[in-house]
């Protein structure tokens, strides 16, 4: 029997496999394919204070070993979530995190505060890769100062697990990680998508309506692995790794690099049952290596 429990600060997960925001809807989209109660956690899609229509079509481009997206946080807003979606997800026997996005610090604060009162939402994942509209549109997560500021303000009002999701589009990700840790983040998840672009040469036009978009899938895995390793060495709080995980081996690599848990993202689109095979694969790996706990691999990279 192997112990798959992991600690994420204020929260214990039954296993280290979670599903990433924006790739798993509200979980219900996957209930025909898997038993949702088996996974360690579900990060439901990006939620903002007010409803957002998202970006115009086309929002997606397939790229070598990955995809670009420019969905633009389409969602019906936090009040709609609380009233209509929360009742349908609250009884899932797993940890439901709401991914919180905003374009001003006030938006983040109000949204987080509203979610603070939901009994069956044990945590939020703060998406700080959004543009800060009051500061010229630069993403909150690309400077230590604005990243720290938003985490500090949200921490003031949010009392449950506060996971902060970092943007990889920075020069030194460990500096940002240290800044959010200092302001009270309980855990850090990374990486969000890498800024990329696709061009249709025949039409001489960008593929995406927004010209640039977020790259995900195995194409980003080596970058993600490097950043998880850097951040895990820099901070003391638990790190949740993601970026191109397609199978259990990928997940184990992230854990060896220092991730206490992982999130499966883009792979869900291709195989809606992948989270379960990753979970079973981690368990099989531990057994095969005669290890009794996931902590026997977390951060155990030998260098």
């Amino acid at each position, binding site marked *: 029997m192997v112990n798959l429990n992991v600690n994420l600060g204020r929260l214990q997960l039954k296993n280290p496999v979670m599903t990433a925001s*924006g*790739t*798993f*809807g509200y979980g219900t*989209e*996957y209930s*025909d*394919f898997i038993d949702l109660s088996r996974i360690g956690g579900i990060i439901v*899609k990006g939620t903002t204070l007010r409803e957002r*229509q*998202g970006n*115009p*079509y*086309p*929002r*997606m*481009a*397939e*790229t*070598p*070993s*990955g*995809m670009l*997206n420019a*969905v633009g946080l*389409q969602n019906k807003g936090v009040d709609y979530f609380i009233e209509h979606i929360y009742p349908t997800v609250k009884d899932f026997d797993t940890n439901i995190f709401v991914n919180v996005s905003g374009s001003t610090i006030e938006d983040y604060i109000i949204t987080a505060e509203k979610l603070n009162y939901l009994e069956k939402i044990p945590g939020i994942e703060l998406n700080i890769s959004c543009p800060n509209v009051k500061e010229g549109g630069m993403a909150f997560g690309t400077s230590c100062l604005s990243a720290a500021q938003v985490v500090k303000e949200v921490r003031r009002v949010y009392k449950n697990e506060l996971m902060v999701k970092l943007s990889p589009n920075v020069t030194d990700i460990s500096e940002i990680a240290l800044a959010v840790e200092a302001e009270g983040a309980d855990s850090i998840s990374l990486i969000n998508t890498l800024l990329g672009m696709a061009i249709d040469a025949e039409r001489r036009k960008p593929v995406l309506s927004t010209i640039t978009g977020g790259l995900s*899938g195995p194409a980003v895995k080596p970058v993600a692995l490097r950043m998880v390793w850097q951040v895990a060495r820099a901070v003391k709080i638990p790190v949740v790794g993601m970026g191109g995980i397609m199978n259990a081996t990928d997940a184990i690599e992230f854990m060896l690099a220092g991730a206490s848990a992982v999130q499966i993202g*883009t792979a*869900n*689109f*291709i*195989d*809606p*049952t992948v989270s379960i095979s990753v979970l079973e694969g981690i368990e099989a790996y531990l057994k095969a290596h005669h290890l009794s706990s996931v902590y026997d691999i977390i951060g155990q990279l030998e260098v």
Partner: protein
Amino acid sequence: MKKFMLDLIVKKNEILNDQYFLLVLSSDMPLPEILPGQFVEVRVDNTPDTFLRRPISINFVDYQLNELWLLIQKVGNGTRKLSTLTVGDTLNVIIPLGNSFTLPDSKDSNIMLIGGGVGIAPLLYWGSYLHERGYKCNFLLGGRSENNLLQLCEFTKYGNVYTTTEDGSHGEKGFVTMHSVLRGSNFNDIYSCGPTPMMKAVASYAAENGVFCEVSLENTMACGFGACLCCVTDTTDGHLCVCTDGPVFNITKLKW
């Protein structure tokens, strides 16, 4: 409807011409219930050039033979790879996806199904479904030339077939919306699938004549089951997913 991820077996891969092929798939298990207008997401294996599944509309379902037909045009790396499948190969699909066409109000309805190019694919299953239930169908099928007119023998089983080609090699010369049958008759229900400019022209014709009209859209998708929100189309209700709110939309809902 419950969705399944299944390994189907290739029973036949019929090359229709240099551009199109028909995959006849089967399974050891009975196929789930599939409605006309629905689609599958197929996984393209053993190629480094494709990452995501490919959404393919369901061309025909034969429950007696436990067969599912996919009519596919070779357009890129994914569909080219699928064209190389041979009898006995397996194809992993997620099925059934999307909504379906709406049955006409009355069995006496004068029904017209208008398709262009590979967009005729879902209309065959829809036509057979209507025919089986006692509705009388007409099909108006168009293509650039004779080579792009597919499965005409199949369509004639379920109703009158009219054709147009842009080069005049088959049927009337021109676009489907220029066909004389649209001037002569009063249709009550029109269903269409094909290139967007064609569907827009059909939608204008239907709107001008006050005819009920549904179109089946084809947007690029990452998942096919409502998780990624990539395939949206702009509607009177905001951005809706073509994969779950569609692919079939009433034209009054679309902001075209």
